[in-house]
């Protein structure tokens, strides 16, 4: 739309780079003389309905910031010395091609790591580049891949799909859609929602729901704004979430608050588990009969007393009219002639949960027993009841049992894929830029290369679930060269020195050790400072792209050019063509068209519409898809799991030799696990306090955002501060056996007296960039107090929000 004053208004949608967040909002971009002069919210977009948060409202300051990288740069001084010269794109591409091809020739393609940050608009394009180059080592650098991946993995193996709170985001009419129901309760487990828009979600949807009558149950060590608005707030000890979830399960079972028909029909609760000397194991047809399949399971028929096989392929019992016993212990003779005792999954499940009495859980979690009972009742008795969980579920080494227990809550209460519950979330219209499961979308790798992915032989979930290399193992291998040398790193949408890297000093040494490193970013960062070539990327208003997680399916449209910046997609396409003979796509639009084929449209069509919702009856549109046969590839009712059931006793975990049912595991550094360390470091250090104006390590140079918070703070309870002689606003040192930072004390009663909360992602764009300063990152980066290589069992999770520290007033 063009106005009289020469302003053109372009309707588009957001995703990084720019706002940084995972995007989704609809915007109206005001352009004059090829310059963006204003960004407003699009009132017609169902996601944000006209609203915008401060990061998108600051886009003009972001795009035209004097510090934006405007041309490719080549290092001329020593690494980290900060001496770069501008070069042309041709020179940059030629240089990268030459250097990286040489590494490939001398050491093999697997010796280059392709390193991304959080799940912004990059996964598809960086995996395309890695695979075109031939490397399987595409990686997200956070220790234990502790961001969303653990939760996704657990949901995927438990219920075959991911689920998120249904805040009506699948409906154009949103809350007014007749099919939609307002949740009676939303449980917010570990997230300061209004300050974040996480995981394809819009935090303020919860405010919309509160206004429409939803009540809140908030589980958080801090009394955030949303916790202060909750009907019930449970202040738990960081890292003990699994115990609390198991406490809920205990109460739900004891008080019969579970959904019997769902559990009986749709979960593997009736399956039998053998008691074996080596531990329990699911009873499979192969145990029962020689020649039987080990993909089929066995139940006990209550009517006949027979042991009946569940055929996973046919999704049916071998005997019609089987009524499986939900509970019980039985004896039977196995195919090898031995006899065995078996119990149903549900019986074992009850036994497992019996240990987690409210009293015991209270001791572990610090939450009073009566409040645990109240919380469990509030969650389970509400209908519909939705549960939103946050990053703390990933950032603990026990992330697997923790996310499993919480996932079970919405399954056993029948809140899966119902209106106003936890709805299954798929890529809109099945448009997949990169799959979560191992394997490629745009390109795939030949088997013999794929097998070299770092970490896949160490951990089952890394091998079978996600195509990423395991970052802790990558860092170790950079120094050890075992089983092969790492020689180069391509870093895009990532800032490991300031943000994703734990023990960032090690990441600095690692990057400097390599023969060749490239960083693609929009601003000079502490990480870019260490690299050999830096490429200037475009913001979302300067590029064409698309987004399909979860809904709507939408186009991101180029509105203007800024300097010589290129989009991440264009950069990676150009290099993919140079690295791979017969690369199958010529232009970015060819690439988008091929990805959009499953939606039956071209990129041009999508641009015209800006966004579309999946049509009714499509597998990517709720509800009750397990009943309608919309979830499984074979079109049968059920779930996309090995058995077709929600697996409360996980066959995948069994296969990976991990505990198949949830349990509590103490954080590795805690008053309980390491009492001696705790004497020296008597405060629990939680990190990642969310700040509205900033997305992770970004936006510290944007004036309208930085003015909202000038410096990193440490939240500390006033009583604790008083004991330590610390006043609000004073500089304090936060220290443990790994390192020390100096930040500003923020005394506040919202935090537990035994916990302090630090912020992540800080560096100072205004300070000296060259080493050793690296924009002052070492003074304030709290990751220096968090170890690498403490990943959880399964290679997932790390102790990022539950470390130990001491705090004292800084000198001078």
């Amino acid at each position, binding site marked *: 739309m063009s106005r009289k004053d020469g302003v053109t208004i372009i309707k588009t949608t957001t995703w990084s780079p720019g706002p940084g967040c995972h995007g989704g909002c609809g915007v109206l971009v005001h352009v004059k003389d090829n310059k963006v002069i204003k*960004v*407003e919210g699009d009132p017609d977009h169902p996601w944000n309905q006209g*609203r915008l948060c401060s990061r998108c409202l600051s886009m003009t300051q972001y795009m035209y910031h004097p510090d934006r990288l405007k041309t490719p740069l080549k290092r001329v001084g020593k690494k980290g010395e900060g001496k770069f010269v501008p070069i042309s794109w041709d020179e940059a591409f030629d240089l990268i091609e030459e250097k990286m091809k040489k590494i490939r020739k001398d050491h093999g393609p697997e010796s280059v790591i392709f390193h991304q940050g959080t799940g912004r608009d990059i996964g598809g394009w960086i995996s395309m580049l890695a695979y075109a180059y031939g490397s399987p080592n595409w990686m997200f650098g956070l220790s234990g891949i502790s961001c969303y991946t653990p939760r996704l993995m657990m949901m995927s193996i438990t219920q075959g799909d991911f689920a998120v709170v249904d805040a009506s985001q699948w409906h154009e009419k949103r809350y007014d859609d007749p099919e939609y129901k307002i949740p009676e309760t939303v449980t917010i487990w570990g997230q300061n929602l209004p300050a974040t828009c996480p995981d394809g979600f819009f935090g*303020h949807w919860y405010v919309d729901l509160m206004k429409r009558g939803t009540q809140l149950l908030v589980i958080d060590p801090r009394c955030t704004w949303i916790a202060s608005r909750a009907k019930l707030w449970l202040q738990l000890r960081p890292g003990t979430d699994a115990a609390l979830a198991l406490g809920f399960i205990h109460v739900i079972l004891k008080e019969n608050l579970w959904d019997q028909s769902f559990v009986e029909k749709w979960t593997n609760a009736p399956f039998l588990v053998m008691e074996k000397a080596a531990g329990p194991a699911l009873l499979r047809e192969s145990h029962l009969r020689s020649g039987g399949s080990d993909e089929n399971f066995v139940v006990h028929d209550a009517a006949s007393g027979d042991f009946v096989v569940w055929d996973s392929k046919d999704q049916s019992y071998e005997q019609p009219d089987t009524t499986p016993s939900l509970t019980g212990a039985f004896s039977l003779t196995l195919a090898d002639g031995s006899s065995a005792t078996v119990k149903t999954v549900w019986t074992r499940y009850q036994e497992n949960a019996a240990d987690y009495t409210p009293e015991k859980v209270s001791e572990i979690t610090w939450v009073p027993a009566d409040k645990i009972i109240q919380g469990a009742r509030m969650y389970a008795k509400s209908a519909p009841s939705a549960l939103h969980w946050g990053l703390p579920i990933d950032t603990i080494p026990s992330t697997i049992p923790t996310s499993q227990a919480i996932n079970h809550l919405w399954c056993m209460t029948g809140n899966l894929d119902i209106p106003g519950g936890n709805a299954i979330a798929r890529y809109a219209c099945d448009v997949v830029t990169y799959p979560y499961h191992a394997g490629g979308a745009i390109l795939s790798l030949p088997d013999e290369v794929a097998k070299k992915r770092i970490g896949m032989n160490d951990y089952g979930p890394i091998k079978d679930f996600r195509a990423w290399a395991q970052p802790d193992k990558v860092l170790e291998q950079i120094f050890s060269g075992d089983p092969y040398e790492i020689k180069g790193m391509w870093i895009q949408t990532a800032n490991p020195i300031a943000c994703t890297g734990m023990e960032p000093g090690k990441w600095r040494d690692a990057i400097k050790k390599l023969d060749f490193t490239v960083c693609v970013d929009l601003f000079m960062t502490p990480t870019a400072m260490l690299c050999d070539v830096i490429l200037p990327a475009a913001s979302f208003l300067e590029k064409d792209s698309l987004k399909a997680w979860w809904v709507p399916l939408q186009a991101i449209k180029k509105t203007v050019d800024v300097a010589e910046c290129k989009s991440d997609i264009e950069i990676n396409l150009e290099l993919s063509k140079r690295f791979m003979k017969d690369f199958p796509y010529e232009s970015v639009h060819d690439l988008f068209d091929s990805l959009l084929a499953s939606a039956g449209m071209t990129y041009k069509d999508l641009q015209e519409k800006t966004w579309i919702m999946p049509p009714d009856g499509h597998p990517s549109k709720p509800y009750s898809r397990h009943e309608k046969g919309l979830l499984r590839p074979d079109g049968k009712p059920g779930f996309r799991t090995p058995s077709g059931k929600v697996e409360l006793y996980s066959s995948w975990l069994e296969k990976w030799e991990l505990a198949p049912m949830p349990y509590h595991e103490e954080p590795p550094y805690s008053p309980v696990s390491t009492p001696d360390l705790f004497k020296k470091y008597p405060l629990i250090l939680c990190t990642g306090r969310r700040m509205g104006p900033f997305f992770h390590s970004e936006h510290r140079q944007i004036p309208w955002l*930085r003015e909202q918070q000038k410096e990193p703070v440490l939240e500390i309870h006033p009583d604790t501060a008083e004991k330590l002689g610390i006043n609000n606003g004073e500089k304090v040192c936060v220290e443990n056996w790994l390192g020390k930072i100096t930040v500003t004390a923020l005394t506040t009663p919202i935090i537990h007296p035994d916990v302090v909360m630090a912020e992540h992602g800080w560096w100072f764009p205004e300070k000296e960039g060259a080493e050793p300063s690296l924009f002052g990152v070492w003074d304030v980066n709290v990751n220096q107090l968090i170890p690498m290589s403490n990943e959880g069992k399964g290679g997932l999770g790390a102790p990022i929000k539950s470390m130990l520290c001491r705090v004292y007033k800084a000198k001078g």
Partner: protein
Amino acid sequence: MSTYAMLIDYEYCTGCKSCEVACKQEYHRPAGRAGGVEVQEFIHRLPNDQLFITYIPTFTRACVFCAGRVKQGMAPACVKHCMANILTFGKLEDLQQQLPEKRKAILWTKG
């Protein structure tokens, strides 16, 4: 002549500061100075010991009630972008009818 006013349903204000930045973008105001609105935080400890966090957007002398936008039939920039949709701009007599029934709110007039 009618008086214009701003209804602030602050029970749901999350302190996100979109209003502040929306105003700064609209009027190209510098960082480091107040624009037309500033949001204040209160952490109350109530008599029953419960913690309660309240944010209140405060309109400053620099607020012009978006006269230019309003003349063109648009909502003020802060109202349009408020993430919690708690701001309503309009004629005082209309807003008096819209006061929320069950919670406290603020009616800010131009005077």
